[in-house]
C-alpha cells in the first residue's frame, strides 16, 4: 500500500513543470521596429510567425541595434519549438561572438534550460552556478525556478529546499505552487509542503483544469498523511474528495486503503464497492475488483468473497478480450483516425488551435496516457506537423501567383530596360557636359575681351544690330547724312554702349550665376543617369535571381510535403506504439490480477474445505462413543 502511494508521489513529482522557461515577457525597451514586430507575434504566442519574422528581419537588415536581442529571442523560440540543436548552436555562436554582457546571463539560462530538457541535469546545474552565479533581477525568478527543478531531478532534495527559498511564493501559479509543495515534501519539509498543498486545495472551484488540480493536490495531501502515519487526517481529506473527475477513482482507492491501514477494514467496503461498479478501463477499478473479495474474506463473508473473485475473473477476461479488439483497431489505424479531429484553421501562421483527442469509447482506457507528458508532446507535434503541411499546401497554391508576378517583372524588365538604355545613349550623344564646358569657355573669353554684346539683353542686341546696320549705311553714303543726324546717331550709340558698359558687372554676374546653376543640374543628371544605368544592370541581375529562386521552389515544396506526410505517419505510429505499450502493461496487470484472483479463490475454497473438514471431524469425534468411559 505504502509502496503504491510512494510511486504515486514520485510520479506526481516527476511530472514536468508547466511553468515555461525564462521568457521575454516583461516590458522592455524596443528600439528597432523590426525587433518590435517580432515581439508583436511572440507576445501573441504566434511562435512560428515570430520565428519567420525574426529570420526575415535578420536577413533584411532591419535590426540595426537589436540584432543580438532578436537572435536570443529566436534561440528561445527554437528551443520552445522542438529545435534544441538549432537553439544551442545559435546560443553558443552568440556567446562566442562577444555578445552584449547584459544579454549573456539570459543566454546561459536558455542553454541551461536546453540541458534540462535533454535530461543533462548536471550540465544544467553547472551552467547555472558557474556561468550565471548571481542572476540579474529580471532573471531571478526563472533562474531559481529552473535551478529548483534541476536539483529535484538530481535528487538533491535538501538543496532544493534552499533553492526554493529564493522563489517568491505569493507570485506562483497554482501549478508551480503544487510542484513546489511536492518537492518540499520530498526534501523533508513536510509542513511547508502541506501548507502549499492546502492553498491549492482551497482554491475557488473554477474550470475543469482548476478543479482537477485541486483534486490532485488533495490526493497528494492524502498520500502524504498516509505516509506520515496520520491515517485519520488522510481519511477525512479523502472523504471530501469529489466522486467525479479524473482523480476520483484514485481518491476512492486511497480512502479504502486508509481505513484498511487503520485496521477498520469494514469501513473500506463502501469505497471499494463504489469503485468496483465503475468501468474496468480504470486501473483503480481493476485493483478494487481484486481487493473487494479479499476484504470480504477478511471480514469472514466467504460466499461474497467467492462471488467477488469469480466476478473479478469474469470481468478481467472480458476486459482482456476488449483490449485484444482495441489492439486490432490500433494496428489498423482506426483508433487513431477516430481520435484525431479535423483541426480548424485560420491562417497557417496563427497559434495552434485547440486540438483535443475525441471522446471515443476507448478514451478512459488511455486516460493516464493522454495526461502524460510523452503523449502530450507527441500529440502537439502531430498537430504542429499538420499545420506545417497546411502551410506548405498554401504556398503550393500561391506559387502560381508568385510565378505570374515574376513573369510580370521579367516582362517589365524586357520593356523598360531597353527604353532606359536608349535614353542613356541619347543623353550621352547630347554631350551636355561638353556643351557646358564650351559655354563656360565662351563666357570667360567674353569676360576677358570685354565683349559687350555677349552680356546684352535681346532688346539691346536688337538695338546694337540696328545701330551697326545704320552705321554701315551712314558710312556708305556719308554725303547724304545730315550732321545733326550723325550726331544724334553717335549720341544714341554712345548711350547704348555706356548703358552696356555701366551694367557689365551685374550682367556678367548674372550669366556666371546661370552657368554655376547649370553645374549641379548637370551633376544631378549625371547621378540620375548613373542610377538608371545601375538600376537597369541591377534589375537584370534581380530578374535572373528571381527566376532562379522560383525554379527550385516547386520541387522543394513537393519534396517537403512528401517528407511531411512520411513524418506524419511516423508520428501516428509513435502515438500508436504508446497506446500499444499501455495495452501490454494493462494486459500484464490483468494477467497478474486474474492469477491472483484464481489463487485467492483457490485459497478461499481450500480454507472453506479445511474448515468444513475440521468441522465434520469435530462432529465425527463428538459423535464417537467414548471408549474410555
Amino acid at each position: 500500500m505504502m509502496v503504491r502511494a510512494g510511486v504515486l508521489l514520485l510520479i506526481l513529482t516527476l511530472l514536468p513543470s508547466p511553468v515555461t522557461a525564462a521568457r521575454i515577457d516583461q516590458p522592455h525597451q524596443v528600439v528597432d521596429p523590426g525587433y518590435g514586430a517580432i515581439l508583436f507575434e511572440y507576445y501573441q504566442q504566434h511562435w512560428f510567425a515570430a520565428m519567420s519574422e525574426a529570420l526575415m528581419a535578420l536577413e533584411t537588415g532591419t535590426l540595426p541595434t537589436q540584432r543580438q536581442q532578436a537572435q536570443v529571442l529566436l534561440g528561445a523560440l527554437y528551443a520552445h519549438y522542438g529545435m534544441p540543436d538549432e537553439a544551442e548552436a545559435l546560443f553558443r555562436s552568440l556567446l562566442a561572438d562577444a555578445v552584449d554582457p547584459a544579454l549573456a546571463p539570459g543566454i546561459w539560462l536558455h542553454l541551461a534550460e536546453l540541458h534540462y530538457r535533454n535530461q543533462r541535469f548536471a550540465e544544467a546545474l553547472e551552467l547555472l552556478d558557474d556561468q550565471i552565479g548571481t542572476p540579474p533581477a529580471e532573471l531571478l525568478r526563472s533562474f531559481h525556478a529552473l535551478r529548483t527543478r534541476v536539483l529535484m531531478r538530481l535528487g538533491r532534495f535538501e538543496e532544493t529546499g534552499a533553492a526554493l527559498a529564493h522563489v517568491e511564493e505569493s507570485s506562483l501559479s497554482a501549478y508551480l505552487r503544487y510542484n513546489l509543495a511536492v518537492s518540499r515534501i520530498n526534501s523533508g519539509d513536510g509542513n511547508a509542503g502541506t501548507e502549499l498543498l492546502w492553498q491549492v486545495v482551497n482554491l475557488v472551484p473554477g474550470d475543469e483544469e482548476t478543479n482537477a488540480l485541486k483534486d490532485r493536490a488533495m490526493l497528494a495531501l492524502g498520500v502524504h498523511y498516509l505516509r506520515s502515519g496520520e491515517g485519520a487526517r488522510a481519511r477525512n481529506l479523502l472523504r471530501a474528495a469529489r466522486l467525479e473527475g479524473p482523480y476520483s477513482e484514485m481518491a476512492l482507492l486511497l480512502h479504502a486503503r486508509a481505513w484498511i491501514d487503520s485496521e477498520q477494514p469494514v469501513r473500506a467496503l463502501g469505497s471499494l464497492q463504489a469503485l468496483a461498479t465503475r468501468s474496468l478501463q480504470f486501473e483503480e477499478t481493476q485493483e478494487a475488483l481484486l481487493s473487494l473479495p479479499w476484504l470480504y474474506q477478511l471480514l469472514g463473508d466467504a460466499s461474497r468473497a467467492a462471488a467477488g473473485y469469480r466476478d473479478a475473473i469474469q470481468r478481467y477476461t472480458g476486459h482482456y478480450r476488449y483490449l485484444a479488439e482495441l489492439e486490432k483497431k490500433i494496428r489498423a489505424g482506426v483508433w487513431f483516425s477516430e481520435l484525431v479531429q479535423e483541426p480548424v484553421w485560420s491562417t497557417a501562421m496563427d497559434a495552434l488551435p485547440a486540438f483535443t483527442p475525441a471522446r471515443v469509447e476507448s478514451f478512459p482506457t488511455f486516460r493516464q496516457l493522454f495526461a502524460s507528458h510523452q503523449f502530450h508532446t507527441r500529440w502537439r507535434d502531430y498537430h504542429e506537423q499538420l499545420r506545417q503541411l497546411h502551410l506548405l499546401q498554401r504556398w503550393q497554391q500561391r506559387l502560381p501567383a508568385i510565378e505570374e508576378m515574376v513573369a510580370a517583372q521579367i516582362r517589365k524588365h524586357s520593356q523598360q530596360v531597353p527604353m532606359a538604355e536608349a535614353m542613356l545613349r541619347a543623353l550621352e550623344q547630347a554631350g551636355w557636359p561638353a556643351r557646358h564646358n564650351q559655354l563656360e569657355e565662351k563666357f570667360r573669353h567674353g569676360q576677358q575681351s570685354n565683349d559687350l554684346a555677349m552680356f546684352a539683353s535681346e532688346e539691346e542686341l536688337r538695338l546694337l544690330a540696328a545701330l551697326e546696320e545704320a552705321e554701315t549705311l551712314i558710312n556708305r553714303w556719308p554725303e547724304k547724312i545730315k550732321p545733326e543726324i550723325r550726331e544724334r546717331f553717335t549720341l544714341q550709340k554712345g548711350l547704348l554702349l555706356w548703358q552696356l558698359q555701366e551694367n557689365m558687372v551685374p550682367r556678367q554676374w548674372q550669366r556666371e550665376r546661370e552657368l554655376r546653376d547649370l553645374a549641379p543640374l548637370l551633376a544631378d543628371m549625371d547621378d540620375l543617369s548613373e542610377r538608371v544605368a545601375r538600376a537597369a544592370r541591377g534589375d537584370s541581375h534581380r530578374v535572373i535571381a528571381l527566376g532562379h529562386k522560383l525554379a527550385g521552389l516547386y520541387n522543394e515544396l513537393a519534396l517537403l510535403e512528401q517528407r511531411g506526410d512520411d513524418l506524419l505517419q511516423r508520428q501516428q505510429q509513435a502515438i500508436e506504439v504508446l497506446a500499444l505499450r499501455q495495452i501490454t502493461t494493462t494486459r500484464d496487470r490483468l494477467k497478474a490480477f486474474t492469477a491472483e484472483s484464481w489463487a485467492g479463490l483457490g485459497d478461499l475454497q481450500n480454507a472453506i474445505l479445511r474448515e468444513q473438514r475440521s468441522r465434520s471431524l469435530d462432529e465425527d469425534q463428538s459423535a464417537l462413543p467414548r471408549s474410555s468411559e
Partner: protein
Amino acid sequence: MIDSELFPEVYVMRRIGQGLLVWLVLVCSVAASELDKDLAQFRKDVLDINRRLLLLEEELLFPADTQLAVFVSLDVGKYFTPDSITLKLDGKTIDGHLYTDREVKALKTGAIQKLHTTNIRNGSHELTAFVSGTGPGGREYRRAVSLQFEKGSGRHFIQLRMEDDAAAQQPVFVFRSWQ
C-alpha cells in the same frame, strides 16, 4: 504469486517477456529520438523555405525602392487603449485595423505592429492616421494625426507612436519617419 521453483517454465517465459518488453521500450525510445531529430530538421527546412518564399513575395510585391512600411507602437498605454486605426495616404484609405485584446496586450508590453506595407512613388506624400479607442477616464477617444514626408530612394519607414503624456494625463500621437 508464481514461484520460480514450482513453475520454472512459467517463470522463464515471464522473464523472456520482461526482456522483450525492455527491448521494445529501448527500440521505441531510439525510434522516438530519431523521430524528434527528423522533426526538428523538417521544421528547420519548413522555416527556411517559408522565409525564402516570404522574402521573395515581399520583393515582388514591395520592391525596396518603392516600399513604405507603417509601424504602430503604444508606449505604456495608461491613457489610451486603441480599438481601431484607419490609414489614409494622399487622401486615399489604404488600410484599417481592429485590435484584439491580445494585440493590445502585446503593444502594451513593448511590441511594435507592422501595420501596413505599400508601394509609393518618390516625392512628397501625406499620411493620415485616424485612431479611435478608449481614452482617459474610459471615455471614447478619437484623433487624427498627419505627416508630410518626402519619399526618396530606398525603403521608407514611418512609425506612429501612441504615447502617454503624464503631465497632461492625455495620450499623444506622433509620427516618426526615417529611411
